[in-house]
């Protein structure tokens, strides 16, 4: 809790240098989120989950569909009077509730259907970053619930097929690797045939999707990631400027509010996705190290709480929430450091944004509630 609050304060301090109005707003969000989180912490009961799950699922799906009709180019937000609601954030809670209620091993089809529905709705917004978050978290929970190993293998190879389909040689190599793995794991014959057929299907369909379906800016982002120096002036601009911002901070940083990259708008969206770069520019390696370490400790503490839980349902519930934090940590900082392409995923507790701040705190307080609940 205190680590999270410290991170939020660091975030607000940094956002203050970019835009004071936004920083004030973020402070209000944090206060509101903590109050809301505290109420949840105080009064939450496991029985609520069963009552709330279906209404929440329906509302989320409804809002996700509604978001498709918003006037924005990227249909990610729904405008409410006081702030933009990002319905995809709510799906975090929906997933957690779902995994609490249903064991994926026993209710495989039902769980898969809901996951794929939410995944597709978010993917088509399009919000690739969040869609992958859903996929990542779900996959991990499946793995933890000991869903059929063949099935997981099948999912992994579908992804490998998509990635490798652009280079024939790599595709062929992956194909042989798949056959080898099927042989080693001694999979059942119908799983083997389905895996191989799917592998070929994705291998053929991906180039077609790439050429016909994907929007140019999505393609550009991926291409820019592969070759940042060449696309410096265009899409990799964001990545490159973030690297300049971080690198130019050196050990001690340029000093508070002295980062030129951020101050003169070379660093794009510094208050949301690239806030880590802004912090690194102002406070240098020490600042960056401090923030990364804080988040890391926060995640470790959550994982330790997770280990103490014995109830299987609560374990899945907790893990879902923690995995979203881990995903945020990995993806956002990787993007800032130029390890991954730009995906537009906020950094937990630090980035500006009403929906994600409130949901982060709700998740955090839920984990705290679980700790309280499981020990009592």
């Amino acid at each position, binding site marked *: 809790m205190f680590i999270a609050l410290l991170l939020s304060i660091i975030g607000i301090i940094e956002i203050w240098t970019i835009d004071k109005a936004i920083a004030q707003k973020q402070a209000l969000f944090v206060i509101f989120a903590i109050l809301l989180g505290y109420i949840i912490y105080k009064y939450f009961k496991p029985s609520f989950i069963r009552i709330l799950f279906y209404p929440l699922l329906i509302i989320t799906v409804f809002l996700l569909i509604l978001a498709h009709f918003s006037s924005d180019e990227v249909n990610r937000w729904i405008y409410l009077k006081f702030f933009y609601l990002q319905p995809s954030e709510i799906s975090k809670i929906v997933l957690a509730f779902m995994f609490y209620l249903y064991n994926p091993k026993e209710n495989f089809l039902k769980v898969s259907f809901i996951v794929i529905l939410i995944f597709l709705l978010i993917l088509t917004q399009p919000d690739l970053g969040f869609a992958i978050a859903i996929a990542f978290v779900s996959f991990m929970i499946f*793995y933890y619930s000991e869903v059929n190993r063949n099935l997981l293998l099948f999912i992994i190879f579908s992804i490998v097929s998509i990635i490798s389909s652009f280079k024939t040689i790599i595709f062929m190599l992956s194909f042989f690797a798949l056959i080898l793995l099927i042989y080693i794991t001694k999979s059942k014959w119908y799983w083997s045939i389905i895996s191989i057929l799917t592998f070929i299907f994705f291998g053929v369909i991906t180039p077609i999707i790439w050429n016909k379906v994907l929007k140019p800016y999505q393609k550009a982002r991926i291409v820019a990631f592969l070759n940042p120096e060449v696309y410096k002036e265009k899409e990799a601009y964001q990545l490159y400027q973030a*690297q300049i911002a971080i*690198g*130019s901070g*050196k*050990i001690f940083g340029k000093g508070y509010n002295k980062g030129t*990259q951020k101050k003169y*708008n070379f660093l794009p969206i510094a208050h949301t996705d690239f806030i880590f770069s802004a912090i690194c520019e102002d406070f240098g390696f020490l600042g*960056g190290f401090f923030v990364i370490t804080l988040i890391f400790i926060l995640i470790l503490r959550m994982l330790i709480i997770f280990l103490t839980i014995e109830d299987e349902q609560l374990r899945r519930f907790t893990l879902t929430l923690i995995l979203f934090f881990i995903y945020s940590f990995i993806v956002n*900082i990787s993007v800032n450091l130029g390890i991954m392409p730009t995906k537009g995923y906020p950094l937990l507790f630090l980035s500006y944004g009403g929906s994600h701040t409130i949901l982060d705190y709700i998740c955090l307080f839920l984990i705290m509630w679980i700790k309280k609940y499981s020990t009592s």
Partner: protein
Amino acid sequence: MKNVILFLIPSVFYVIFIVKLFELQILKGDKFSKKAIENYIYTINLKPARGNLYDRNGKILAGNATGTRIFIVSKDEGIIKEYKNFISSLNGYYSDVVEYEDFFSISSRRELLENVIFVPITYRIYPYGELTPHIVGYVNRDELGIEGFERVFEDSLKGREGRILIPVDAKMNIVDKSKIIYEFPQKGKDYKLTIDIDLQMFIDSLVKDFEKAAIIVMKVNGEVLAIYSKPKYNPQIFSRGLTKAEWEYINNSELAPLINRTISGLYPPGSIGKILTTLISLENGWNWRNSMPCYGYVIYGGHVFKDWTVHYHISDIKEALEVSCNVYYYNLGRFLGLARLTNYLKKLDIFNRKFTFFPQEKISFVPDSSWYMKNYKFIPGGAALNIAIGQGELLLTPIAISMLTGAIANNGKMPYPKFYFGQVIKDTFKLPFSDSVIKITREAMLQVVKGPRATAGYINWKLYNYGFNINVAGKTGSSENPQSKKTHSLFTLFAPYENPEFIITVVVETAGHGSEVAVPIASEILRWCLLRYYYQ
């Protein structure tokens, strides 16, 4: 196992992040700092004023004019367009170099000033234009020295660049005008040339009837007073861009105005070459008192070698030079032989070295037997005879002729030409001949002007008429010109004879005999020099 993976995933990324952070901020920190500065500092380079070139009396040969240049600091198309429209409305066209009045018009529009930086600029001007291009040279549009002095001394003339550093944001808006840093440019070094632009102007008036000429006036200490080459051109045209007519004129291969004929023009020296033959013959034991009849020709190897007139009797070598008797020198050529004559010539600096620092300069040429074999496949029987009278394949530049005359005037030594004050001259042109040989040649050259049968007697008569009591020594030359029946007219002199001060070499192409054209011009130049520098 599953729990280990759970802890492993964030831990692995944590380590990767720290390593990457270390790489970006500590290993590559300096590189990215530089990039960050490049990002937000917009740099305007300020060109320095080039160093001035003065003539020996302080008149500006190459100077600078000033103007104001506008830099629009913005990426916003609308803003840029608004500026361009406004400036266009002042003059009717758009140029980033604005006039003095426009500067105030722009300053009066405060909202326009937000995104604009005024930078004073200088550009090269040549006040004497066509009088000096061959020595001063010229600069191109980027103010880079291309020819002449401008080229040779580019490094010290160009000065040091200055900069204006403007902090801008990502959209190229000026962030804070008070934080603009000015690093002022440093003007290049000035040079004071030994040239006298008044003399140059006077020479220009003397050759106005001739198309091509090359004239050098030197002092005995090596200072070059005038270095004049015609056809001339205006050096200003290159910095503003050539018109079609100008381009055609400059590239006319027949006129070749860019060539500095005084250092790059290779001429058969004509009878001036006889000075060399005189020196070598005397050095090789020819008695200067040897007399000879002249019937107007000699026959050698079955060929007739003609003289330009019948001289009947030549009493000694001095008289031979005085009347410029070819027959006498044909015999000297026979006496020396091709090998001995060319070997001696080749020892001279004239045929081996450049006298000036101008890259354009060409070295005078003397053929030898191997050259004949290579080009003609045989050695012409009369080669030595032709070289002895300064014809044939022997080629000299006017600067080489001047150096030769200067060395004879100066008892065998002549410092290399000096073009600007402060130039350190280490080299001296030395004639490898004994003092007595040089003395006799000197006397012979006096006789060319003063003797009873003098070919350049005009100059003596003219100076006497002008009221000067002064002795001049020199030698005329009329070199064969393949393009015309008229010969090139050459004359070289030094004066005063007893205590030499001036060396003048005049070459006028396709003008006639040396005594007809070059001698009168040289006498006017000498008179000017005497009045200006000798009888002060």
